């Protein structure tokens, strides 16, 4: 027996390598940095992420398989990588002053965020269920920890525990699904499964159908679809706000990337089954998310439900499928990253130590006191509600187009009706900001240059994608070929 170690295609995993090395570097640097230089850890990781982003961008082009088909670099994954990096970068910007304020200013924080990013990249680029699974676990474990990062805060602990228990529970289902697929097809490779299913009866094989269903449970949990969504509000509320922001964007996008790749590449043969299930789930997700968001008083919880609802919209893209569907998901996720992170950025700016779980009523009269900040929040709210000329509108438009193009008109109608319902609670934020008298004194804003940069970037992204989306759409359309 001879062992031939296959050539390492370092180029295709270069972003991952960069992130890994620098994550560890930060960990080491943390030990040596004095307190007053702690900020520079954030600065450093931000630069690293930006750099990684540039490297990742150069990977655009022909798809490259590496590591015996374990990992693939195609435009799809590159696009998603960019989304992850954008969200990571902004999260880091949000974190720098936040962690100081909350007294959790450790190097591990950034390291874990970077690790989570690595996990996400593995999910987007995983060409084998194993890679996807490992990526998912890396991401999840980092997030379990990050959610509980404020160890002295009970809510943070609780969020962490709930997330962990439920995440592990859902992982069990995911694994069982993978096992079933493996058992039925003899491989865990996505392409392999696709090939097998193309040549063999798929729908009549109960093992495959059951495996697919279990995968839906696993991925559905990660993207927070009804009925697997229940962890979301609690975890989002309890986790440190910066992490909530991160979780609501990056990991969700990653889960969607994997979800989409697995279902559209590996399992198109059972589309007949899963598309109906996802259809129902999408409807439930949108509706429940939007409805329950109305009754929320805590802004983080409200945004959590809103993110559930957005997962519902995004599911539509998967259901729609095809080039249009994939491109629309790509675009939507990017737009969503900007606007949601932006909204959380405002929450962080207004947050106070210990009291960061702001109630919506606390924003009363914000428009009088901090007009610019209020305008910013308004932009994000309108964008989330899908009102032109914000990014959210183009994103929704794209997704609904995809759904309609592929004949899911009723789904699209339910989608738009839902976005009307959603307007109600997004508007409420603007209502309290502009139309209510200020209730209490606002704390002096904890505006660090990082936060300002984060706000500028997210506002810019939200508006730019709304008014000049052509380039990004073109990029998204170029990124639809899946291998």
């Amino acid at each position, binding site marked *: 027996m001879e062992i031939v170690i296959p050539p390492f295609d370092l180029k295709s995993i270069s972003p991952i390598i960069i992130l*890994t090395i620098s994550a560890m570097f930060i960990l080491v640097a943390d030990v040596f940095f004095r307190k007053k230089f702690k900020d520079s850890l954030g600065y450093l990781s931000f630069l690293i992420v930006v750099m990684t982003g540039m490297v990742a961008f150069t990977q655009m082009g022909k798809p490259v398989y590496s*590591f015996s088909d374990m990992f693939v670099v195609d435009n799809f994954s590159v696009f998603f990588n960019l989304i992850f990096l954008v969200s990571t970068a902004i999260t880091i910007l949000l974190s720098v002053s936040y962690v100081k304020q909350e007294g959790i200013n450790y190097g*591990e924080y950034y390291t*874990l965020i970077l*690790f989570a990013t690595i996990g996400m990249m593995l999910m987007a680029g995983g060409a084998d269920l194993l890679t996807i699974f490992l*990526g998912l676990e890396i991401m999840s*474990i980092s997030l379990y920890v990050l959610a509980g990062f404020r160890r002295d805060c009970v809510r943070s602990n609780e969020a962490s525990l709930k997330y962990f228990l439920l995440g592990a529970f859902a992982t069990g289902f995911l694994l069982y699904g993978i096992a079933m697929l*493996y*058992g039925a097809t003899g491989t865990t490779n996505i392409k392999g499964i696709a090939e097998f299913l193309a040549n063999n009866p798929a729908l009549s094989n*109960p093992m495959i159908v059951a495996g697919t269903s279990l995968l839906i449970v696993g991925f559905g949990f990660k993207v927070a679809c009804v009925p697997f969504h229940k962890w979301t509000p609690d975890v989002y509320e309890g986790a440190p706000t910066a992490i909530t922001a991160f979780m609501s964007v990056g990991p969700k996008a990653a889960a969607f990337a994997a979800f989409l790749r697995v279902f559209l590449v590996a399992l198109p043969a059972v589309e007949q089954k899963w598309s109906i299930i996802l259809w129902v789930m999408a409807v439930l997700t949108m509706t429940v998310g939007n409805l329950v968001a109305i009754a929320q008083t805590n802004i983080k919880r409200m945004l959590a439900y809103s993110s559930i609802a957005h997962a519902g919209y995004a599911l539509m893209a998967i259901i729609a499928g095809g080039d249009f569907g994939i491109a629309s998901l790509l675009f939507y996720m990017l737009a969503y990253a900007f606007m949601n992170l932006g909204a959380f950025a405002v929450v962080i700016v207004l947050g106070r130590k210990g009291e960061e779980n702001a109630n919506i009523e606390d924003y009363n009269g914000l428009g009088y006191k901090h007009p610019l900040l209020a305008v910013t929040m308004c932009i994000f709210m309108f964008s989330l509600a899908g009102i032109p000329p914000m990014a959210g509108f183009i994103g929704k438009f794209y997704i609904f187009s995809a759904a309609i193009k592929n004949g899911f008109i009723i789904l699209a109608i339910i989608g738009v009706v839902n976005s009307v319902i959603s307007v109600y609670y997004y508007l409420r934020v603007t209502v309290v900001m502009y139309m209510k008298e200020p209730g209490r004194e606002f704390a002096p804003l904890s505006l660090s240059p990082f936060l300002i940069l984060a706000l500028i970037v997210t506002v810019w992204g939200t508006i730019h994608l709304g008014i000049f989306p052509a380039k990004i759409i073109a990029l998204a359309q170029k990124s639809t070929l899946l291998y």
Partner: protein
Amino acid sequence: MLAGLLFIIMGLITIVCALCVVFQKNPIYSAIFLIQTMVSLAVLYVLLHAQFIAAIQVMVYAGAIMVLFVFVIMLLNLNKTDVEGDYDKLLFQKPSAIILGFILVVMIGVVTLNTVFQGTQGEYTPESISQIGNTQLVGKMLFTKYVFPFEIASILLFAAVLGAIILAKKQIIKDKEV
């Protein structure tokens, strides 16, 4: 035939132990029964010609991981039966769990029994495995086909270690900051 008998015995032991894990009040007993379950599973792995897996099942899983559990239970002084309180606040939890569990079992049974396995056959029949040696084969695969996940797993473990440390550290290190 022997294998069949062994399977039946070990399978029954596994199930009984698993049930005990669930229904034992004292967590430490649960842990012990879980270890027992794992060990009996290891036997089944051997029956399935997966010696390496069986070995690490016992060593890593039943040994290392479960020791961790026991350790934590001891650490937190949880080896009492009354941790969970007397009655369940969620009235419908248990019945619905059991009903759902029943349906799940039935469905899995139905699926398994109705499936005609047509999966692509691999090259590693038990004979060929025993020729090369199970452990060698695993090793070979880990360094060839699965070298990438293998490397990735290191990140996973690193993250986990890091997380465990940061969460379980006794006191927030404020010395540097003070």
